[in-house]
């Protein structure tokens, strides 16, 4: 390893978020990238406050998303409301445990893990921890990577709603949780996008 790692910031350079052009900070003050026109910031603006706000909203929405029904099935006069968890239990009982696992991981585990990891990262940055920056960056990349897969259940509802329309015999309607759940996915994705992992490393560079 050579002496000290050099970050763009320490050399007075700003890397454009959109096209990755390196612009001297003195020039970047004017705000726009000379190559692509994107707003230039050394770090994502208000990244911590925005991430907190989005995460808080997502955490609140997570409750109705899990308590309220995702789908309402009417078959031969009986009406049945299904939550995300009752869908998982249905698949376990009907023997397709792979599908039960997919739904459990995508709809219950991933959103929770994402919330927990992002909150952990925010706290670690605000308390200026120096603990394992590389591992924390890997955690961040994981939340970026897996977040989209939570949309599975929303798509399942869309397909069920389209297919099961057999008049009086059977029909499926989307329940209120579908909207809450989609909101949770979008909010956590936006939160991950607004968090700037480079802050993890800034703390270490500033202190050394």
């Amino acid at each position: 390893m050579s002496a000290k790692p050099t970050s763009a910031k320490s050399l007075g350079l700003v890397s454009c978020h959109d096209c990755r052009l390196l612009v001297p900070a003195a020039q970047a003050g004017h705000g726009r990238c000379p190559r692509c026109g994107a707003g230039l910031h050394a770090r994502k603006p208000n990244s911590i406050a925005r991430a907190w706000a989005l995460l808080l909203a997502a955490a609140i929405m997570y409750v109705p998303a899990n308590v309220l029904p995702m789908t309402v099935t009417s078959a031969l006069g009986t009406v049945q409301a299904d939550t995300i968890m009752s869908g998982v239990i249905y698949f376990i009982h009907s023997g397709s445990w792979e599908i039960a696992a997919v739904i459990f991981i995508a709809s219950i585990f991933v959103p929770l893990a994402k919330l927990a990891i992002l909150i952990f990262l925010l706290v670690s940055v605000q308390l200026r921890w120096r603990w394992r920056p590389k591992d924390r960056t890997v955690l961040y990349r994981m939340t970026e990577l897996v977040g989209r897969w939570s949309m599975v259940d929303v798509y399942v509802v869309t397909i069920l709603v389209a297919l099961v329309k057999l008049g009086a015999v059977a029909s499926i309607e989307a329940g209120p949780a579908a909207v809450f759940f989609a909101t949770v996915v979008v909010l956590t994705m936006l939160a991950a996008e607004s968090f700037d992992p480079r802050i993890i490393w800034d703390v270490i560079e500033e202190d050394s």
Partner: protein
Amino acid sequence: MSIEHDLQSPHGLGRPFDGRSASAQCDAPKRVLACPNCDLLAGVAGEPGSTSLCPRCGAVLYRRKRNCIDRPLAFSFCGLVLFAIALTNPFLAMKSGGFVQETTLLTGIIELWKQHLYGLGGLVLLTCVGIPLLQLVGLIYILVPLRMRLRAPGAVPIFRIIHHLQAWAMMEVFLIGILVALVKLAKMASIIPGVAVMALGLLTFVITAAMTTLDPPLIWERLDPRR
């Protein structure tokens, strides 16, 4: 070579390279890029097809691509054809007793709309149809002129939009959704997958291929208005 030295070299700051070495469409100088995850400056220079990782945090710094224009272009055209097939052919049909319920790709979205779930319908429409379609059309619009060493008007903002929309194109997730829905309904009725399902499966692959064969830093160098 030190980083400071790279920064003083003519190409150091990601300045446009001169396209006079015409034979090598994807030839590029050594670049210095900042790591998107930890801001470390690192020179990236590898054979086409190689991947540079950040020495500090392990993030992918840069993947240099072969045939950086022709490949994404071919996949994009292929994607448009598949899109047309997916949107016009039967998607899934359900048979139960005497009933047959046929659907197209858009039926579910229209149904959500009818149930007044506009936001949800809009989200599904955007993530599974609108954004992927926009990405394909946008890529073709930018890459066809670029191939002829021209720059399409508005190419810069369009390429920025394509970059921003990347996270919101979720066709592969939709495919898993189809699978789950099929298993869920299997006990209730027989489901007949249509041509559109097949087209969608191929489309997922083709769109991913179009985006991964693209070399954004190189395209940006060629789109540079200061050139």
